[in-house]
């Protein structure tokens, strides 16, 4: 069956997701900058009446960047790279191709519904699971379709063994499916109240401590299976592909993968330290978090070693820069997280700005950087054009790196300071600071964070422009580049 002529891949679905990545990225991060600024300058809460308060906008930010920007980026990369490592074109499977387009439409409808309902304040109020049940249903539908498409592609593959990226895509699909279902078990009030009240309203199946357990079993693993697992799928494809280097070690890939799968799920308890869940579960969360450092660092190290001896690529190719820095930031957040999971450290870190700091090390430095690099790499193959501007890409890299550094240093200092102030006692042993003292002191750091965020956002606009110009005005390519993406 194996044919030697190069396959002509059908990228129509990947392309659709590329554009939603850009749009959701701009929307989500603009809101991010706005809410960052609101904490430094509270007057900014009153730009849009009740819809403009920090509290209404915050879930819009998180949901749009996670389920809009990140998920679109993942889907674009999946529909681009999975067919390539399996050696089947989407075009060869018309039914699957049509189903994938349907999945995209369902996804868009759900995402639009999400933005509107969260804006209106319709929310189940569980972090990262805010959508009410009608949207849950839609989400389950498109997720299942994605699974069907993935396994159909795998079934039709010409490459016998699954490439590493696919291991991670499969895990992403299964993990999210399992966790999402359990965490969103909710009872619509419509069916039990004789038709009273809002039709979309529901109550959680679980109460109190149980709800917390299920929620953070999901919440932690949403991080695992949305921000980590599929992004590792991205780096395992795009870094070797862009650099032309072979992956450093199969054994390291293998142990990191199975280690990550096994350990990640246990660590969710670190979101509930010092809470009312039993001590032994908390301890379990802490222990497994520490073990988790190694499988996490394993992937990062594997990628850094893949670039061994390729210093020139790092200096010359901005896409390599993005990806090497991404794996370094991945190392940062997967060491920071476990240390914040130590009970004594968590006593200070929990509830403070050090946590959003940790979050954004991961999501900006790792997730967003990987997505930018992946989309840029894809654009040359999908549009069959040269990247519009290398210098713009280079500038984007430095501006955004500065942004991330400002973000995490300011939140690191703010969080540690605030956490210690909450505990501080005066010479007599009474609380030294009123709550508002611990808020006022953060003003400079909130300002620095907002500036860092703004720099990052400027980079996003540069990226969007560059991508648009690549698609429309980049120099046309005769042949598909084998490795390095050509850029002007």
């Amino acid at each position: 069956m194996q044919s030697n002529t190069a396959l002509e891949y059908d990228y129509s679905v990947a392309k659709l997701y590329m554009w939603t990545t850009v749009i959701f990225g701009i929307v989500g991060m603009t809101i991010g900058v706005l809410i960052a600024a609101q904490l430094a300058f509270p007057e900014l809460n009153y730009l849009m009446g009740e819809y403009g308060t920090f509290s209404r906008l915050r879930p819009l930010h998180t949901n749009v960047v996670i389920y809009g920007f990140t998920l679109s980026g993942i889907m674009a990369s999946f529909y681009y790279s999975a067919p390539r490592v399996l050696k089947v074109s989407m075009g060869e499977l018309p039914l699957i191709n049509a189903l994938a387009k349907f999945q995209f439409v369902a996804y868009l409808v759900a995402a639009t519904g999400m933005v509107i309902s969260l804006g209106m304040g319709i929310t189940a109020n569980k972090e990262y699971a805010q959508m009410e049940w009608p949207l849950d249903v839609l989400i389950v539908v498109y997720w299942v379709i994605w699974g069907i498409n993935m396994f159909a592609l795998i079934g039709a593959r010409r490459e016998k063994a699954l490439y590493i990226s696919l291991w991670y895509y499969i895990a992403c699909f299964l993990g999210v499916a399992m966790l999402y279902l359990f965490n969103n078990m909710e009872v619509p009030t419509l069916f039990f109240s004789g038709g009273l009240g809002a039709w979309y309203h529901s109550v959680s199946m679980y109460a109190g401590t149980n709800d917390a357990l299920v929620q953070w079993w999901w919440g932690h693993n949403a991080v695992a299976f949305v921000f980590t697992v599929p992004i590792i799928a991205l780096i395992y494809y795009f870094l070797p592909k862009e650099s032309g280097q072979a992956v450093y070690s199969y054994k390291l890939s293998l142990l990191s993968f199975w280690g990550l799968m096994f350990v990640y799920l246990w660590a969710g308890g670190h979101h509930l330290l010092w809470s009312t869940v039993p001590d032994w579960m908390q301890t379990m969360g802490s222990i497994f978090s520490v073990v988790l450092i190694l499988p996490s660092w394993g992937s990062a190290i594997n990628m850094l070693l893949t670039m061994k001896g390729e210093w020139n690529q790092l200096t010359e190719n901005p896409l390599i820069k993005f990806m090497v820095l991404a794996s370094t930031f991945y190392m940062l957040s997967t060491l920071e997280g476990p240390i914040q999971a130590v009970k004594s450290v968590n006593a200070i870190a929990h509830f403070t700005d050090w946590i959003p700091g940790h979050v954004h090390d991961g999501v900006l430095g790792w997730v967003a950087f990987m997505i930018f690099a992946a989309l840029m790499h894809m654009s040359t193959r999908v549009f069959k054009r040269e990247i519009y501007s290398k210098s713009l890409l280079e500038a984007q890299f430095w501006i955004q790196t500065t942004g991330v550094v400002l973000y995490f240093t300011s939140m690191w200092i703010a969080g540690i300071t605030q956490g210690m102030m909450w505990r501080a006692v005066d010479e007599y042993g009474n609380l030294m600071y009123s709550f508002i003292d611990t808020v006022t002191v953060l003003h400079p750091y909130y300002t620095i964070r907002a500036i860092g965020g703004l720099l990052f956002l400027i980079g996003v606009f540069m990226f969007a422009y560059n991508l648009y110009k690549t698609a429309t005005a980049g120099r046309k390519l005769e042949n598909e580049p084998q490795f390095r993406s050509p850029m002007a």
Partner: protein
Amino acid sequence: MNSFIVKGLALAGVLIVATLVVVQQMHIDLTDPINMITFIGAIAIAVLTFGVGAKYMAQMKTDTATGELAEENWDGIGEYKNELPPGWAWSFFGTMVWAVWYFLWGYPLNAYSQIGEWNKEVKEYNAKFEQVHKNASPEVLKEMGESIFLVQCAPCHGETGDGLSGKAQDFTSRFTKEQVLAVIKNGQDQLKYPMGAMPAGMAQGKDAEDIAKYVAGGLKGTAPAAWGTCAGCHGQDGKGNGGTAPDLAGYDLTLVQHVLKHGKEGIIGKMPAFPGRFTPVQEKALASYLATLKQ
């Protein structure tokens, strides 16, 4: 190669020093074990990440990629059959052994309970606190009182104790005329003084006016004729007859204790009770501080 690691560690150092400087400015006691562990953790994050990251960066500059290639190839991507990096492999193995040991032996043997720890800490602390400050000087009490006040009371009474333009009791004067009039008219029974309730309607018309003016004025000058009615319970000097009725001249300890225990509802509004929230010394401290606010 070394220059990279040096730069990485320098970056880590800058971050740690900056954090240390800011925290020090807030007068935080870094010898507190929790604070210390946090700081060690922070140093570990910065040093390990920047150090190890820099190490691999350096390898990009100097080493070359080698190894036996696997026969598979996916879309042009190959794979080496290299061994695991030993540092990584040993650390992974080590943490797994540690985890199993900790969970099966290290942890259950300790039979740790976070609530147990709280009970022990607070009990020991409070006993010591009461002991040390049993005979605290007025200056110490006042300072102590101020810090408790700023944390617990200022949101209603304001940082200066002025009651935030009528939202709560203004401690710079004991009463307004209206407050006294209202009590004379309605009586009062909520602070649970030993004497019981104060009856309503103890004085009327001009008498009530005069008394109210006199009390609101801080009981200065000569008392109006009708003051005798009040003096029976509150004492000729209005100081409450040694705690059997409220002190009308200032905020004495008895009054503060009664308010904290029972709360108070008056014409300004309602103050919640704070039962069991403060130790006796802390209550004394609050009273001492309030007493200094009155002009």
